């Protein structure tokens, strides 16, 4: 932790601080929202990238300005970035609550699919509704940051600390939430939805609220992403990116919140260093494995990770060093919320 705080200040490897680690923090937040839903709500969601993108697009439309020197796409409302930031979080959370309500009766693999549908809807909407985004998305959003943050392009350390701080806050917040009465009820709903319903708890409401909270977390990640990359586009919520988020969460382990950042870190490292590695013979530029490129190697490594370690890197760690019982991979709860009385 201390190392993470002093690292960029000491000027060590700006690429690491400003790209790999910021990316790790923000995708870790998005993966954490997924792990929160999965570990405490029993809902594995593919909709987090949709909420991630909604937050980014909302901010992009509200904060950017058009005209010379501005961006060429979006509504260009040019509002105060702080207002835009708050609105982006609020709107995304509201949409997350709506999404959560619609899917609150689904469970297991069906929950996975209906949330995938959300991502597809957002992807197509951004791609087709050219007024708010269009296929190439909105660019240059990182030029419009709130005054109290200042210029993050010339001072990327600021963004680093904001991302780090947000990640820590998200971690602490999730740890706190799951120990509140709401969090405990949610875990009850995860394990025994029918029993909880007969005890008088509103199962659908708890699921909806959990999804809304996770949506809020994903929106934080989305905001950090547009500040980091400057843009948001439908491609951010295409099938590949949506699945990538799940992959990060699974590499991390899907059971412990801190696994989110570990998973994101491992994924981003893999993506960056395998693609540009020139040191390992046969792996370099145009290096071959059965004639394929480094994408084959990324696929093989990913395959090995999911094969040898069902509970992700954290589980692997636990088994290697015996600090923790191997976590049993279990099916999502088979039972689902009772059908409303007809």
């Amino acid at each position, binding site marked *: 932790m201390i190392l993470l705080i002093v690292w960029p200040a000491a000027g060590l490897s700006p690429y690491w601080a400003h790209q790999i680690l910021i990316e790790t923090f923000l995708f870790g937040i998005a993966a954490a929202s997924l792990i929160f839903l999965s570990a405490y709500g029993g809902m594995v969601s593919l909709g987090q990238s949709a909420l991630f993108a909604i937050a980014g697009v909302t901010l992009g439309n509200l904060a950017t300005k058009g005209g010379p020197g501005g961006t060429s796409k979006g509504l260009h409302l040019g509002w105060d970035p702080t207002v835009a930031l708050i609105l982006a979080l609020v709107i995304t959370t509201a949409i997350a609550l709506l999404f959560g309500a619609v899917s609150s009766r689904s469970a297991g693999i069906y929950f996975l699919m209906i949330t995938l549908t959300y991502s597809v809807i957002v992807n197509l909407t951004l791609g087709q509704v050219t007024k708010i985004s269009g296929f190439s998305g909105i660019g240059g959003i990182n030029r419009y940051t709130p005054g109290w943050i200042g210029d993050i392009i010339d001072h990327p350390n600021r963004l680093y600390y904001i991302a780090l701080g947000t990640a820590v806050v998200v971690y602490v917040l999730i740890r706190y939430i799951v120990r509140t009465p709401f969090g405990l009820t949610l875990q009850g709903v995860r394990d025994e939805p029918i029993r909880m319903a007969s005890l008088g708890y509103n199962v659908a409401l708890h699921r909806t609220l959990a999804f809304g909270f996770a949506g809020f977390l994903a929106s934080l990640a989305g905001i950090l992403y547009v500040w980091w990359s400057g843009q948001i586009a439908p491609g951010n919520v295409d*099938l590949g990116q949506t699945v990538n988020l799940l992959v990060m969460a699974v590499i991390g382990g899907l059971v412990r919140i801190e696994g989110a950042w570990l998973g994101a870190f491992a994924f981003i490292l893999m993506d960056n260093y395998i693609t540009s590695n020139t040191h390992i013979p046969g792996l370099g530029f145009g290096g071959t494995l059965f*004639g394929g490129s480094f994408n084959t190697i990324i696929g093989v490594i990913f*395959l090995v990770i999911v094969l040898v370690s069902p509970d992700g890197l954290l589980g692997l760690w636990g088994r290697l060093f015996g600090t923790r019982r191997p976590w049993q991979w279990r099916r999502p709860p088979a039972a*689902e919320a009772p059908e409303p009385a007809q």
Partner: protein
Amino acid sequence: MSAYFTWRRLPFVLAIGVVVFAVAYVLFIATLPAQFGVGNWRTTTFGSAVHDPSNFLKIALDSITFAAALFIVASGFALIFGLMRAVNMAHGSFYLLAGYIAYEVQQGMTGQGFSLQSSDVNTWEWLLPLVVAAPCIAVVGLVVQQAFLRWNQGQELRQALITIAISVIVADQIIAHFPRNTSQGQRFGGNAVDLTWPGWTDRFVDLHIGGVQYSLARLVMLGIGVAVGVGLWVWLYRTKTGMVIRAGVDDEQMTSALGINIQRTFAIAFVVGSALAALGAVVWASQSNISSGQDGVWLLNSLVVVIVGGMGSIFGAAAGAILFAFVSNFGASYLPTTGSDCCTQYSSILTFVLIALVLAFRPRGLFGRGN
């Protein structure tokens, strides 16, 4: 009355209302715009079905034939998903690989090195690529199932992730090796190529309804889809293997307890499911084309069809395919044209919104059995 209409039912009533309105819109309300670029909520590309029955019929035929192609690909996915609860995320990659294999075979037989005219292709030159591609992909499916999925049975998410990893590898290998058949030694890895329907399909059939002439190739596609559906139905409902499979869908543990080799059944399902992906690829590559990147598109198509229909049911897959095809094609044809850049291109969004709504009301899909 009040017992019949409660606030709880309001969303359901609203949904019915929207469907009724959509049907009425297509049938009666839609009108042709006076001129291009202007219009209101009533103006569409074709006008209403009452005014323009022949276009309506053509679009309906387009939809049902497209649904047939969707069904062929998705039924394989449904078989695997329904029996093993395994989401085979490599289904799209199997589809793509089959399409390229079939292309190589067809090019090898006709020896051209580039796209063919229908008249250059006879029935045999279309069938042999299929006969080669389907077993190839069946073997690939079998290997994937035996090597990677067999010992993870019941771990749905892990199986999904394993097949995602496989799809990444297959996608890259396709770019590295296909299309192989090139005329001047220039390799366009993963470039769009197409198969060609046999020559006799390249004509129009007079349907004797409203003077509609319709493409025979598309009707053949519909026929193949129906044949696949009937074949699957006979297999699953009229043979012993099919009964074992259906028993496995309902209660895997009980079925094994009865002394049935469920692993063998799983392997059969995977083989047939993969071969159906290959059949679908050959059909749709003849109808349109295949290229790198379409693996994701067809994975999504299959997912949607199966999820909307309800898992493990071939009727569900058929219903899902029909719903998907009709909404996307009718959306593209009958959404209002209120100005020159609205709104037919929103049909794909509409399709997925509808799918989300179906799942909201019926979390296990149209034909899924809830508990």
